[in-house]
């Protein structure tokens, strides 16, 4: 049989893959080795961009550390809160369906618009949060204090994305076999023991999946920062993606932004692989 015609069938898929993934990556690598402006076009400058990135740009590395801190903190909080909520509505409780839907609402809203609303909430002189806090005679600078601004970003991120974690974990809980729980009841295990020795170990594989998915998503954090603080005050909430965006699309240093993007991609691939391995070891112990 002659299978040459297989390429005809492969073409649509390959075309899309090349168009949206392979070509952009290759182009970014090429771009990162160039300066790019309307006068000179794409001029090859070797590793110059990378040398600048690794020797002369602490702002990028600071933003990367900030991003790591923000994504690990938000995902941890999302996991803990999401698990607690999922565990709550997993059991037969009153208004179970109502709560299940209620907890999903934040995820169904548009992040940018919700962030605008949160910005209004946290507005230092006009927002309702500080209005309420007036009772205690405090008026925190939610968006202009470097530390508090980070916390504000975390609050908004956790609010927006905990439902996603909740959904994955609830699906996981609902798919668990019944027998281990019956056996634990027969063995006389208390609710805490049941959670530690039955629920949590059984949920480990799905937890790892959920955490990894959220970590990937969380490290792309951009719209929240953009709308809420624009990376400020100063650079105290600036994350990698936001910094790359500033360099590339505000200052139009395309070549340099490309070199940062590519470096970022490599670091992310390595660190997420390591995190997945570590989590698997830690939670599954295999």
């Amino acid at each position, binding site marked *: 049989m002659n299978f040459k015609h297989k390429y005809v069938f492969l073409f649509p898929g390959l075309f899309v893959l090349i168009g949206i993934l392979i070509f952009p990556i290759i182009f970014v690598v090429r771009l990162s080795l160039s300066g790019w402006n309307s006068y000179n076009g794409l001029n090859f400058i070797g590793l110059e961009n990378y040398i600048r990135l690794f020797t002369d740009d602490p702002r990028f590395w600071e933003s990367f550390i900030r991003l790591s801190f923000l994504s690990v903190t938000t995902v941890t909080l999302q996991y803990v809160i999401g698990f607690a909520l999922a565990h709550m509505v997993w059991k037969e409780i009153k208004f179970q369906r109502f709560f299940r839907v209620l907890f999903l609402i934040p995820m169904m809203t548009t992040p940018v618009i919700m962030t605008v609303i949160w910005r209004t909430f946290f507005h230092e002189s006009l927002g309702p949060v500080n209005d309420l806090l007036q009772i205690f005679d405090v008026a925190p600078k939610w968006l202009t204090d470097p530390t508090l601004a980070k916390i504000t970003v975390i609050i908004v991120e956790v609010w927006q994305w905990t439902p996603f974690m909740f959904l994955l974990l609830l699906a996981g809980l609902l798919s668990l*076999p019944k*027998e*281990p729980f*019956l*056996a634990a*009841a*027969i*063995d*006389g*295990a*208390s609710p805490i*023991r049941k959670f530690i*020795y*039955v629920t949590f*170990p*059984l949920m480990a594989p799905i937890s790892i999946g959920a955490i990894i998915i959220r970590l990937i998503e969380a490290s792309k954090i951009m719209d929240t920062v953009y709308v809420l603080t624009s990376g400020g005050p100063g650079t105290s909430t600036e994350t990698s993606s936001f910094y790359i965006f500033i360099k590339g699309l505000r200052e139009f240093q395309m070549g340099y932004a490309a070199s940062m993007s590519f470096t970022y991609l490599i670091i992310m691939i390595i660190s997420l692989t390591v995190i997945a391995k570590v989590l698997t070891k830690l939670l599954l*112990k*295999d």
Partner: protein
Amino acid sequence: MSKINLNKISHSYNPNDPNPTYALNPFSMVWEDGKRYAILGPSGCGKTTMLNIVSGLVRPSSGKILFDEKDVTDLKTESRNIAQVFQFPVIYSTMTVYDNLAFPLRCRNFSQEIVEERVNSVAETLNLKSFLKLPARKLTADQKQLISLGRGLVREDVAAVLMDEPLTVIDPDLKFKLRRNLKEINEKYKTTLVYVTHDQNEAMTFADNIIVMSEGEVVQTGTPKELFERPKTTFVGYFIGSPAMNLFESETSSNNSVKINDTLIKTSTDLSKLKNNKVKLGIRSEFIKIAENQKENVISVDVEKVEDLGNYKLLTAKMGNLTIKSKINRETEVSSEKVNLYIPPEKCCVYEDEKLI
């Protein structure tokens, strides 16, 4: 350990319906302390429901369960002192084998010495001693099932260990070993063991008493011998034994004989009080022999096939439209066309409306 008394128990999964359907029809039964029971029946006959009622996972729609005269109907599983082994092994995967076995005791705040002593004793019986320090998840399926069983046995106060088809996931040769193991445990600890299965061999080799169920009904309770020789209904005759009992439509012809296709067969049953002359004659293939010089109860059949099944030959023959199966000695030579079979009267069971007379 205690005597378990099931008093007029029944269960329906839709009790509020005007016409509830019963997963378990009302029945009463007593399980003596320290005996081995098997609940046998086809899938969906209510075996697991019965087991779950005893363990407290299901509350019966009506009736009472008494453990040594104490009413436990409304008690939860954890306060009933019952152990249950499920079809698939349940282990605490993050713990070692030792911790798994110790878990039920630790949950009940036993002292370290008692825990150690009980765990070691049970591990010894179940041959798990060399694995005690290993993580439980590293063991094979049958060893994991032993752990589940062991968690039931470490508690001295269990009223009974209930097992829901516990050997399903286990290899055939190991099954045999484990069943023997279970018997030894029963003899050593005098624990009441209740074993649910759909495999008659398992039930017959394991239990002192077998409870046969069909469609939510307890059809017969008895020793393996009773079930084999005097099945109370045609269902039991059909369900137990391999091949199933031979059942022939027949008519009564005198006080103790029936007619099958014009051949008169004498039985040891008194048939004088029957209202109806349509009955079924049941006889195990094990009891049908090739006629030598008998004059009575001999039927002439056409041989259809003879299969050599290793330890015996299975003869399948036709008499008119009836099929007869007989287990015969391997050494016996069988004619390939016509053969005379002898039906011993004392082994005949006569059924009226599917029930033994």
